[in-house]
Structure formats: C-alpha cells, structure tokens
C-alpha cells in the first residue's frame, strides 16, 4: 500500500445517536502529504482523526497506517509511533520542558544521554533556546511557546505520522501566523505524513496539500488539493463552505516566496541621507528599507525625511510596523498591508534578514488573474 494513512469505509456510530459521527469514510493520505480535515462543527473531523491513534475505536471499517491495520496492532505501540498535537497542548505542568519533550523517548527506553540530546535538538528545531527553556515549567511559558513545545514533544521519537488537532487554534492571530509559517518550513524538511484538523478554511488552504471536507454526519464531500477545491468545488456545499470570496482565497494558495521581489533596493545604517535620496529617485521609490551589516532589517527611511535632513540614515530611521515571511501566504501578507495601511511589506527569513519585498499591487494582480476562474464556477 502506498498511502501512509488509509481509511477504508470507516464508520463511527455512537450508541444512542441517530446519525453516525463518521459515515463510511474512505480516504488515502500519501506519504509526506498534509491532509487537512475540515468541516462545520459536528462533522466528525476530530472523531475521524482520533480513530487513527485509537483514542476512538471505529464501529466498522479498517484504518491502515504505514500499510498495517491499526486495529490488529498493539495500541500502546501504535500511539508511541504517532506524533500527537492538540489544541489545548496538554503539557504536563509538573514536568520540566525537557521532561515533557523526552516523554515518548523515555517510554521507548532511550538512554538518558540520548533523551537529553534529543530534547535540546528539538527545542532548537522549534525555535526555543535550549539553555533558556529546558529546565523551565510549562506555566513559565507563553501560549505560543507552549505550543512549540507541544510540537517538539510530538516530534520527539521522530514518528512518520503526526496527528494535529487544531494545533494553532487557541493562539493569538499574529503568533498563529508565525507558528504556521515555522511549521511549514519544518515540514518541508521533515516530510511527515500529517492529518490536521481545523475549522478555519484559510488555515486549511495554507497548511494542507490535501483538503478533506466533511459534512455534518461525517459524510465526505471532497478530498483534493487546495487548488482543485477552490477552482472545482465538487458540490454546492463545498462551494459555500469555501466561501464566496474565492478570488481572495486564491491568495492563500500563493506563497510570499513565489511572488516576492528578491534583492530589493536597500540602504545601510550609516549611509548619508543624500545618497538615499538619489537611490530612491532613481528607482522611483518614496521610501527605502535600511539594513545593518548582517542584512537584518532595522527600519526604513521615507523620501521626505531624507530630503529634509542631511545626515546619516540612522538619524531619520522609522521603525517597521509589519513584516512577513517567505512561507506566509499572499493572503496573510495582503491582509497585513490592508490592516496597517501600507503598500509594501518586507519579507524576513528566520534570522530577521531582509530577503525580499511584496507589494499590495502584486496581491491585487493575483486577485484579478483568478477572477475569470471564479466566474466560471
């Protein structure tokens, strides 16, 4: 079997309920894909996911993980071989961060030295400094940091399959965007097979390589790539669920890295303002981003400010109010530009270095492009 996760006619019927929670669901998730399961509340998306690690047992049908029928497998071993991330995170409050991350390795009998090494390695992977965080307790962390630890804990034993139940659902929007971007970056290297549950269609389009849309009662409506879901919704339920602003939604399918202008014109910190004025005129710009000697973004200088002051860039520097990342979607970027009322957004990598620039014009161009397709519905 080539799919990593496979549902064959899986039904879950709770006793006393007139309709099934999941109704003869058949889906296949190939290795390395992220399948986002989405639908209105009561559609059985969480039930479907929890059947994979047997927190819920199916009433009928079979589920295969890595080609093995999970119902014929030892449930404890099965769970230890699947990474599990939940919305409420569920870190153990009486364990340090390191102990939380090393839990599955410990149960698998790894040596202490190997566990400690792995925990530090994973803290690095999720962007937390091991020296600073490993001995802390969960209550000493912010919500976003805790969910990073939640992801690290799920990755601890390097499981091929991950289940993620609204992992970024309880986190503030700005941190959520960042965590999503980081996770996409991570997934590019790790190539896990992921089943990801959400109720947010934008998150689904951003995170998924496959989108699985369920209707209340656990009926599969469509499973396809985000692009196909948007351009060829299988029925009116899917079309309605995806929403009428599909032109805008299509921005979700385009990553910042695909449209950004690389190597943007910049100025440096100690450059004379007169030089900046010349450069801005030459490129018909009304402001220019300023970077330091490591190419980290430190601010911007407006044309008027540079003209009014003869000195160094540092004297007339204004702080940058919004930035984006290469993994972000153009929708994220456009919405940031709209909410801050700006026309350009600098793109930073994980080291805060400026790697490119996206503009509101780029985003509007993309919406216009997709418009005929939306009309063809």
């Amino acid at each position, binding site marked *: 079997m080539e799919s990593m996760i496979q549902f064959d006619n899986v039904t879950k019927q709770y006793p006393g309920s007139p309709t099934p929670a999941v109704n003869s669901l058949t889906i296949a998730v190939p290795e390395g894909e992220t399948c986002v399961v989405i639908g209105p509340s009561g559609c059985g998306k969480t039930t479907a996911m929890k059947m994979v*690690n047997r*927190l819920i047992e199916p009433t009928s049908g079979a589920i295969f993980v890595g080609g093995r029928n999970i119902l014929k497998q030892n449930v*404890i*071993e*099965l*769970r*230890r*071989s699947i990474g*599990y991330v*939940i*919305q*409420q*995170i*569920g*870190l*153990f*409050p*009486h364990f340090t961060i390191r102990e939380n991350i090393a*839990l*599955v390795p410990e*149960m698998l009998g790894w040596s202490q030295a190997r566990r400690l090494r792995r925990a530090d390695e994973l803290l690095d992977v999720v962007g937390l400094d091991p020296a600073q965080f490993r001995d802390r*307790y969960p*209550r000493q962390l912010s919500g976003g940091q805790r969910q990073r630890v939640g992801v690290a*804990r799920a990755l601890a034993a390097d499981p091929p399959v991950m*289940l993620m139940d609204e992992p970024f659902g309880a986190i503030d929007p700005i941190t959520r965007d960042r965590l999503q971007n980081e996770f996409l970056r991570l997934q590019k290297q790790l190539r896990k097979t992921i089943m990801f549950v959400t109720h947010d269609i934008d998150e689904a389009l951003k995170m998924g390589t496959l989108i699985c849309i369920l209707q209340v009662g656990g009926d599969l409506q469509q499973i396809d790539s985000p692009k196909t879901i948007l351009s060829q919704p299988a029925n009116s339920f899917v079309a309605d669920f995806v929403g009428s602003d599909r032109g805008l939604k299509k921005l979700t399918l385009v990553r910042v890295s695909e449209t950004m202008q690389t190597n943007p014109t910049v100025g440096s910190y100690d450059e004379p303002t007169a030089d900046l004025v010349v450069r801005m005129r030459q490129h018909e710009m009304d402001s220019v981003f300023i970077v330091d000697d490591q190419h980290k973004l430190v601010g911007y200088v407006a044309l008027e400010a540079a003209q009014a002051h003869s000195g160094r860039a540092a004297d007339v520097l204004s702080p940058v109010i919004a930035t984006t990342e290469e993994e972000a979607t153009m929708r994220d970027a456009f919405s940031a530009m709209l909410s801050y009322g700006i026309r350009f957004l600098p793109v930073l990598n994980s080291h805060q270095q400026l790697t490119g620039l996206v503009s509101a014009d780029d985003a509007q161009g993309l919406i216009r492009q997709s418009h005929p397709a939306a009309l063809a519905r």
Partner: protein
Amino acid sequence: MENLVEFLISIKDGLLYYVPGVGRPDRVLEFLAGHLLITLVTLVFAILISIPLGILITRVEWLYEPVIKLTGMLYTVPSFAMFGLLVPIVGIGFKPAIVALTLYSLLAIVRNTAVGINGIDQAIIEAARGMGMRDRAILLKVELPLALPVIFAGIRIATVSTISLATLASFFGADSLGSLIFEGISAGGTRNDKIVAGAIGAAFLAIVFDAIVSRIERVLPGSVAR
C-alpha cells in the same frame, strides 16, 4: 467577670500542669504518646483505604455517588453514638477508637482524592493517552502527582479532626489526652487544670501534625505545577 477570672486561672493551672515538680508532665507525656499512636494508626488506615477508594470512584463512575454519600453519612454519626455502636462489635479500648476515627476520616480523603483527580485538565490526560502512556503510568506519573495537593488538603482535615476526636476514645477505654480531660471533668470542677492541660496537649499535637503535613506537601512533585 468572675467567670472570666476563673477561666484564666484554669488556663494558668493547666499550663502549670506541664511544669515538673508542680504538675505531672510525665502523665501528659504518657497520654500524649497514646494520643499520638491512635492518630498515626488511624491516619495510616484511613489513607490506605481512602486513596484507592477515591481512585476507584473516578474509574467506576456509578460508584461515585454512593461512596461519597456513604462516607458523608458516616461523618454525620455523632461520635459518642459511633463509639457506643462499635464497642459491642470490636470491644473496648484502642480498637473502637481506630475503627471510628478511620471511618470519620474517609470522607475528607476519599472525596479530595476523587475531586483532585477529576479536577485535572482533561487535555493533559488525553495528551498522555495519545502519546501511548499506559493507564497505570498515567495514574502514577500524571494523575496522582497533580492531584496530591488536593489529596493532602483532605489528609490535613482528617488529621486535625482525628486528633480532636481521639480525646473521646479514652471514654471507651483507650489512653489519650482525653483521659486527662475526663479525669478533670469527673473531679467536678476541682481539677480544671487537667481539662486545660489535656486540651492544650491536643491543640499542640494538631498544630505540629499540620505543620508536618504541610511540610511534606511542599516537597511533593505536584507542587511545582501551581
């Protein structure tokens, strides 16, 4: 006013009872030892019965109500009646004291154990299960450590009420600080110093025990979680 003066004199006499040569500190010590023994044995039994019972009723849901109701009913039986009912069954002396005081302690510890476990954030339990922890490991490494502060609060309540009720045990033939109190009462107002001396001893014991239990509580693993 006169009563107040008399009361203060009794307190003074009670304290003097602890002074060698003036009172009988040796007798206080003897009764204190008996009191201590009753308290310790009761607590050991109460903890050994209540914690497993408390865990059980979080696992077998239909048992929760009847067990809590039964232990609650036991708690409301007047102590003299409880001792009186037990004497024909287990005889007089140490035994009825242990049985009665253990029965009184059940409510606080059983209830707090169950409440402590049920009060744990279900997400933590789900994460534990989802990661492949076995039920026993979840109980020992997650549920009990996290419930311990609440369980210990129950043990503290049980400890204080056991120390106070253990005074009654001497009425049914067990040695405790109550013996001193009853001697004082039977003297018909002439030996109030004994009543006070016994009461002071029991209060002192309660304070010491409470301090010990709270000290233990502080070094428990679950305490870092709060």
